[in-house]
């Protein structure tokens, strides 16, 4: 009940002209980012983070949350109209979305995707309101050892998720840790890994590394593929943008099933939007009376995975806000953003900054409604935007990346770091080294080190503290079970992606 009152107060804060404008801008920017090739939600949030510093923390975070869920909507547009899944989680949407578009039913597919995303988003947010404060309340019982075991095992499970070799994932995670250690030491105040250079004592700015690895590397990838020489793939013509009554009837249960499945699995660390989207697609095929329609243009094949995808994304906010655990790279950047704004994600967030948190949650409801109202009429415009030539898009992304990296600390060193990591990101991609573990460890590294050192201070240097405390031991046991489940789910998802696309993809 308390949560509802807080949420209503949050709505009171959001429904002001300036805040509504911020939510609108964030949602539209997010959709734009989702539609345009070459810029994903992670890089968009990272680049725009410095821009939002002129806003107050609540407004800045509202905008970034808008970009995050807006991009989830946007991703389905290219998947349906052009058969281009921007991220691996959109692959199931292409399977029936594009055949539907070729049959002249692009509008119905896009409409169902938007409605499914909206319902899933709302279900996810209701779950967030119910579960996040409860989890945060329970997490107040956690001490440093519990947090350390929780973060370590969440990371181990996430390593398994990247779709590539576990060895490479572990190495990338360790390298992320290594880069997070550069700067002033936590206990002695001595500089670490500075090698006598004063510019290294301030450490690496994680936002510039993220801009390099995601935005600049993506442009370099596009240059290699000669995207500027290719004639942009013409999107399929959209005739009617609204789905028929029959489409809505056929999609209602798939949307509900996808939302519930996506949300509940999405709460668990180690189950990504790609996994739930594929599970939802296969579930719909299994329960359908006409499974032979799938792959040839079944509306249920769009409704189920799109809803699951969005519900999982909303579910990811629960561990983020209540435990400070990001389950995907965009959420890791949001975690960094929260910290830059002076907020500490975790159980005390709801106590200390409750007003801001509830305002952000309320803004997500409003943002989802705005997206539903605006996206359908604007579908034609979004489709046209995919025509922007790469020859203009790429320089703009590079220049925005330059400015974004510079403006975090007004430092040219950060720009150089972003460019170097852009090249590294391109090479990592080329040689199939996953960057997700690197980012997550880079962001969580300082926290994990702090909890580890605090735990050992408590136990006078005895490692047994991690198995002696009941909650910590329970987390360890649960982590083993979840790890086994996630390995099984991961193998299945890898096999399905290979079946459907003929290639391996980094899973997000």
């Amino acid at each position: 009940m308390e949560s509802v009152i807080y949420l209503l107060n949050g709505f009171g804060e959001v429904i002001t002209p300036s805040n509504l404008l911020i939510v609108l801008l964030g949602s539209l920017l997010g959709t734009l980012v989702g539609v345009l090739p070459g810029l994903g939600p992670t890089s968009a949030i990272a680049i725009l983070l410095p821009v939002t510093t002129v806003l107050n923390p609540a407004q800045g975070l509202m905008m970034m949350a808008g970009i995050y869920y807006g991009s989830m909507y946007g991703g389905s547009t290219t998947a349906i109209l052009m058969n281009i899944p921007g991220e691996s989680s959109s692959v199931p949407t292409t399977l029936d979305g594009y055949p539907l578009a070729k049959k002249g039913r692009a509008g119905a597919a896009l409409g169902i995707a938007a409605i499914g995303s909206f319902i899933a988003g709302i279900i996810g947010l209701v779950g967030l309101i119910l579960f996040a404060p409860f989890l945060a309340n329970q997490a107040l019982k956690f001490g440093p050892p519990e947090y350390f075991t929780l973060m370590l095992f969440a990371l181990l499970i996430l390593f398994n998720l990247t779709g590539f070799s576990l060895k490479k994932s572990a190495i990338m995670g360790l390298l992320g840790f290594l880069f997070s250690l550069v700067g002033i030491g936590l206990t002695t105040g001595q500089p670490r890994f500075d090698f006598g250079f004063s510019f290294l004592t301030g450490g690496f700015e994680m936002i510039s590394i993220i801009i390099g690895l995601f935005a600049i590397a993506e442009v370099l990838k596009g240059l290699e593929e000669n995207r500027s020489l290719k004639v942009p793939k013409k999107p399929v013509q959209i005739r009617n943008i609204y789905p028929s009554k029959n489409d809505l009837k056929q999609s209602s249960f798939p949307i509900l099933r996808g939302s519930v499945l996506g949300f509940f699995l999405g709460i668990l660390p180690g189950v990504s939007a790609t996994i739930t989207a594929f599970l939802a697609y296969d579930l719909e095929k299994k329960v359908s009376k006409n499974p032979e329609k799938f792959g040839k243009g079944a509306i249920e094949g769009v409704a189920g995975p799109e809803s699951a995808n969005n519900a999982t994304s909303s579910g990811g906010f629960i561990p983020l806000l209540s435990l400070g655990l990001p389950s995907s790279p965009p959420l890791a950047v949001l975690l960094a953003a929260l910290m830059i704004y002076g907020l500490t994600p975790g159980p005390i967030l709801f106590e200390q900054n409750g007003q801001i948190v509830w305002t952000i949650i309320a803004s997500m409801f409003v943002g989802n409604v705005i997206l539903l109202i605006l996206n359908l009429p604007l579908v034609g415009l979004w489709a046209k935007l995919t025509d922007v030539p790469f020859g203009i898009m790429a320089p703009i992304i590079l220049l925005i990346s330059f400015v974004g990296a510079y403006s975090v600390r007004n430092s040219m060193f950060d720009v150089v770091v972003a460019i170097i990591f852009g090249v590294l990101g391109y090479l990592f991609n080329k040689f199939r080294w996953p960057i997700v573990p690197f980012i997550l460890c880079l962001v969580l590294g300082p926290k994990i080190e702090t909890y580890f050192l605090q735990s050992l201070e408590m136990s006078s240097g005895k490692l047994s503290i991690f198995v002696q405390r009941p909650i910590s031991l329970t987390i360890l046991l649960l982590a083993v079970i979840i790890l086994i489940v996630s390995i099984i789910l991961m193998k299945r998802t890898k096999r399905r992606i290979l079946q459907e696309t003929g290639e391996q993809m980094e899973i997000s």
Partner: protein
Amino acid sequence: MTFKLFTEKKISGFIVILLGLLSLHEAKTLFPYSKDLLIGDHVFPGLIGILLVVFGLALFFERKTDEKKAELPTGKTLLILVSSIVILFLYCLLIQFAGYVVSTLIAAACLIKIIGKYRWIKSILIAGTITGVFYLLFIVFLKTPFPSGIFTF
């Protein structure tokens, strides 16, 4: 059976081992400042160093070779890639002397010319528009303190 030294796994394994050794060296340097073997700023560099060396060795001696070989770009594509990166580095230098407006105009025009393969005049026009929009957004509106260089704007 042939032993290839310059494979992706050997090179990356070697780099990972080197980084691990570097981390271990840093741990050794920091150890005198700490009060216990497991409490202090040296602990994580030490742990990460050990793990990097172990994983690096495992990668170096891995026998599995079923992975697809990555092909690096060549010819014109490589030239475009390298020149784009060089332009960005030159932009970092130029902005300190020439200031935001001039350096951004030059960098944007060069990038558009190289990546988009437009004629120079069109590249400069597009670059001018981008520079103007960015100037309004980042300098006028967001007050980002870019170097103004030898020019006063």
